[in-house]
């Protein structure tokens, strides 16, 4: 799956076997749902799944980068919420809508930089630093709108969610663009090398003369940027600013990241697997909804399947020995 070894041409069989287990689970799940529910395999539903996963997908890319550096960013969900609120309220205050979008994404980039500084300079474990930030950020989001959601009418929201380009809605394209961008950064720039270094052997980076503080700040700031884009898409999806809309997404993003084969240790993994992780979660929800499983049981079912998926993933990896 990893681009680093792309030059090595291996036959298809071993390459299929080397896919993260989550891909197979995804296939199995999709098969199960398409057998149980006839409407599942409709083209429209596939499109549906892609659109629904796009916001979480972008957030999960951000989380993957952070996890690669052996951290977790618990403030990502709050950052996305903040952007929805800031964007709409700035626009409402009369600022040009594109400028407003840029400004609000800038805000999360700054939040990300603070996270990075706390982690690198402050030497606080990322979990607790970003948890603190989560509180701060969600407070800002709530204070911006005095606690309520905020609404502003502009064609851009519907334009984003309803425009289709080559049969695929815009949010999916944006997610694809973010994937391309992140992929390039991760595998084709120094920034990406440093991410793998921070997770794999920070000492090596220091000896090679890399300023690790800067690297951390950059990673968290970029994660903030992605969270901002996720927030923009979300704002379009719900056509309003919602101060708590992203609550808990950071954890789903972690789950997707780990399912995608990125490890909390030694900087192993990459963003391609994360796509499968996010799709697994989305397909699961979508499938349960389409099959009309009652709300009462959904949480337990999703929980059990995610737990099984993680356990199977661990088992398969152990057998494979990676």
């Amino acid at each position, binding site marked *: 799956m990893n681009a680093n070894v792309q030059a090595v041409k291996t036959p298809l069989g071993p390459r299929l076997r080397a896919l993260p287990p989550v891909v197979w689970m995804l296939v199995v799940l999709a098969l199960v749902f398409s057998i149980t529910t006839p409407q599942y395999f409709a083209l429209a539903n596939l499109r549906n799944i892609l659109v629904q996963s796009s916001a979480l997908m972008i957030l999960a890319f951000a989380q993957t980068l952070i996890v690669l550096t052996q951290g*977790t960013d*618990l403030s990502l969900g709050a950052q996305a919420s903040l952007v929805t609120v800031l964007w709409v309220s700035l626009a409402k205050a009369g600022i040009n809508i594109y400028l407003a979008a840029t400004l609000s994404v800038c805000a999360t980039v700054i939040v990300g930089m603070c996270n990075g500084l*706390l982690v690198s300079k*402050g*030497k*606080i*474990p990322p*979990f*607790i*630093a970003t*948890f*603190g*930030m*989560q*509180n*701060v950020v*969600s*407070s*800002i989001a*709530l*204070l911006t709108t*005095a*606690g309520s959601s905020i609404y502003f009418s502009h064609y851009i929201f519907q334009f984003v969610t309803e425009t289709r380009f080559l049969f695929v809605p815009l949010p999916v394209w944006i997610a694809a663009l973010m994937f391309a961008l992140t992929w390039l950064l991760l595998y084709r720039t120094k920034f990406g090398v440093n991410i793998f270094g921070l997770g794999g052997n920070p000492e090596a980076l220091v000896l090679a003369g890399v300023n690790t503080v800067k690297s951390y700040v950059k990673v968290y700031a970029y994660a903030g940027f992605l969270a901002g884009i996720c927030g923009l898409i979300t704002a379009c999806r719900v056509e309003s600013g919602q101060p708590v809309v992203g609550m808990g997404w950071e*954890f789903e993003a*972690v*789950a997707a990241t*780990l399912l995608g084969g990125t490890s*909390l*240790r030694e900087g192993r993994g990459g963003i391609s697997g994360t796509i499968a992780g996010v799709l697994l979660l989305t397909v699961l929800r979508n499938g349960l909804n389409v099959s009309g499983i009652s709300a*009462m*049981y*959904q*949480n*337990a*079912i*999703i*929980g*059990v399947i*995610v*737990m099984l998926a*993680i*356990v199977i993933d*661990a*088992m398969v990896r*152990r057998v494979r020995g990676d």
Partner: protein
Amino acid sequence: MNYIAKQIRGSRSFFCLAGLMTLLILSSIASPDFRTLDNMITILRQASTLLILSTGLTAVIITGGMDLSVGATSAFIGCVCAQFLKIGVPVAAILPIGLLIGAAVGALNGFLVSVVGLPAFVATYATNWVVKGMSIIVMNGAVIFGLPEGFTWFGTGYIGYIPVISVIALIVVVIAYFLLQKTTWGRDIYAYGSNAEAARYSAVNVYKTVFGAFMLCSMSAAVGGLLMTARLNAAEAAMGDAYGLQTVAAVVVGGTSMLGGEGGVSGTVIGAILLTVIVNIMNLLGIPSSAQPMVVGGVIITMVLVDSASRRRDETVSKKSRNLLKTPQKGEVV
């Protein structure tokens, strides 16, 4: 005496204690309503549930792990036991039932972490999801209320001036302190947390240690859940939500390192009280609810920042030992 002073000064909870003291003093100045006996008892009562939940979590975090399922587990056990009480199970039987379910959830976590080898963070997040889903199923969305008085007394009663719930919290803390500090198993938890590999080489029973820590955690969550239910005189599937990460914050602010091997329940006591006091004083000062998380987040970051700065000061060579260079001392160990 010198030793004790040194221990306190050197212990991780020192900064937390100092922070709490500062907060108490500032609060007393800021609000006259704060320094009443009544308010102190209120804080004590409110801190109790958080304290019970975080006490068990302390053990898990000392092993270098994490339990994100504490809040959900406590709610789940509260819900199940409320259902049991409703169908007439005697109050006396409820505690064992709760502890048993707690032990089962803890064993599941322990299994996922030590046998399957998942990172605790992920394993317990999945457990959190499952347990939360199960409490929704158990409750079917309803709220159970009107529990027997013999049961609610534990949550609302008083012994003298002291709320029963605080007495129970104290008991839980003392038990956990005793287990962690005075038993070989407790020592194994510290040893495993500071260096898991060394613990294995020192013939520590790793499974017993990890399972034990998670079970202690979930069992204290059980006690917390029962008391939460008793105090509310009701059970609701979502009642543990707020405790999920707050417990982690209480433990870490109390000076227990997320890397494991350091800290203890005494710090957690201070951490839990600290977090409770912050909310209390903010309510008294009329700080709007939307702004409150910001203050809490700020305090958490500051406390941990100070703590980690002090840790680093230990690591670097102090001025005093630098001077050793100038006047080499004979017989000094290299």
